[in-house]
């Protein structure tokens, strides 16, 4: 048997395959396709204090090996989550992580305080990298001072595991990783989507109502992998790799580059069973290569180069 587990501090994950926020709903949408409890964890939809309707339609466009989205954090707010969703999903035998968002630092703090009280939520993912909202979001994740401030403020009120999700739309992602580590983040996840756009040439107008949106899917994998490698070399806390992971091989690239875990995003739209298939594939790879613990391959490429 191969050991696939990993930990953020004293929080144990039975395996390193999680699902990415905004791409896996609250998990239950996938009940027909896979056993959610087999996953290492699920990061639920981006949540805000107040309910949000998000951006206008059209919010989506297909690109070469990827897609743009401009959902803009549509969600029913933390009250609804706590009352209606939390009871439904807390039965899953996996780590449920809430992705939190706000326009102001106070929003993040208030949300973190609320979620701190939810027994079955062992961690939050602080989203300072959403490119699709006018206020907050990526603005926090592309300015070092703001990133520091919001992490510090949330850390002060949140006792469980704090994962900070970084934006790729920066000159030097390592600087941001260092700052959030310094401020007490327990883990770093990256990348969120890259800011992109598409024009409808026939209609002569932008494909998205918001003009720009977030690029995800295999197209961004090389960039995600590079950033994960850079960050994992630098920080001591576990790094969760995200970006364009469609196959076992994609996921393995991230582990070999230094990620302790991965999140599967857009892939779930194309194959709702992707997270489980990738999980099985990782196990088979380790067996074939003669490893008994996934930790043996984490950051492996740094040893040989």
């Amino acid at each position, binding site marked *: 048997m191969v050991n696939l587990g990993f930990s953020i501090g004293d929080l144990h994950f039975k395996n390193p395959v999680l699902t990415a926020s905004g791409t896996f709903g609250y998990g239950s949408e*996938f009940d027909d396709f896979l056993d959610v409890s087999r996953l290492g964890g699920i990061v639920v939809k981006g949540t805000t204090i107040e309910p949000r309707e*998000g951006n206008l*339609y*059209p*919010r989506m466009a*297909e690109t070469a090996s990827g897609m743009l*989205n401009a959902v803009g954090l549509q969600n029913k707010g933390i009250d609804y989550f706590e009352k209606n969703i939390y009871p439904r999903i807390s039965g899953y035998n996996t780590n449920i992580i809430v992705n939190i968002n706000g326009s102001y630092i106070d929003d993040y703090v208030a949300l973190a305080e609320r979620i701190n009280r939810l027994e079955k939520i062992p961690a939050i993912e602080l989203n300072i990298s959403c490119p699709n909202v006018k206020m907050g979001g990526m603005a926090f994740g592309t300015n070092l001072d703001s990133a520091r401030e919001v992490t510090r403020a949330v850390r002060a009120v949140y006792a469980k595991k704090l994962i900070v999700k970084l934006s790729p739309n920066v000159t030097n992602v390592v600087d941001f990783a260092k700052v959030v580590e310094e401020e007490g983040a327990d883990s770093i996840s990256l990348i969120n989507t890259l800011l992109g756009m598409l024009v409808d040439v026939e209609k002569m107008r932008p494909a998205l109502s918001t003009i720009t949106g977030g690029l995800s899917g295999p197209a961004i994998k090389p960039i995600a992998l590079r950033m994960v490698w850079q960050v994992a070399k630098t920080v001591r806390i576990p790094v969760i790799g995200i970006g364009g992971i469609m196959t076992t091989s994609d996921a393995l690239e991230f582990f070999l580059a230094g990620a302790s875990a991965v999140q599967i995003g857009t892939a779930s*739209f194309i194959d*709702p069973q992707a997270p489980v298939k990738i999980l099985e594939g990782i196990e088979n790879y380790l067996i074939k290569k003669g490893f008994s613990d996934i930790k043996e391959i984490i950051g492996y490429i740094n040893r040989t180069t």
Partner: protein
Amino acid sequence: MAKRIEDLKVIGNKRLNNDFFVLELSGNDKIPDFKPGQFAQVRVDGSPETFLRRPISIHDVDYERNTFKLLIQIAGKGTGALSKLRNGDFLNLIYPLGNSFGLPVENERVLLVGGGCGVAPLLFLGKYLRSNGYIPDILLGFRNSEQIIEFEEYLKIGNVFLTTEDGSKGEKGYVTNHSILLTGRYKRIYCCGPDSMMRAIAGYCKKNNIACEVSLENLMACGIGVCLCCIIDTIKGNLCTCIDGPVFNINELKW
């Protein structure tokens, strides 16, 4: 009904005209009990530019032979690639997805209105209504007589009325101008087609107090209610066309 992901075998690919073709699919397992208006998310393999699945309605179902059909209009890269499938090829589907058209109230006289690739769900809907004791009339709009497809199939369901934009068959103009709408005999209309057509029909129905359901064709990524890309602004706020739809009562919409 449980959603599934499955490789289905292509057992027929019939070209109807320049734009339309019908794929017939059969699976190893028993096909599900489809409801009219439901759709499948179709994976287009072998087309470098189709990353996302394509939503396609259930067009016709044959429970005895355990097969069903998709009626597809070649709109671009994905549907173009699907048109080249050959018998024996496999097609990966996530299905059945979405809600469905509601049954009429007893004795209501019913009209199905379709245009373009919007006719796709109407055949199955028509058969479904028939098997539930309704004999709907059907009004179809096409660009010209050469674009008319599966006319005989609809004749098996009920009276069929036609419009063509050039007047080459049936009444000239758009479905919304057809004279049967002036009779005022229909208490319920099911409509599927281009946005402009559905909006016109919805306007007509609202003015005349006719119950009306439309099937929307919003852009979709996931098809299962998680990406929130396919939303439509309704009186209940943003709803997902993939799980709260694709069928909506026009009174719900802010049209």
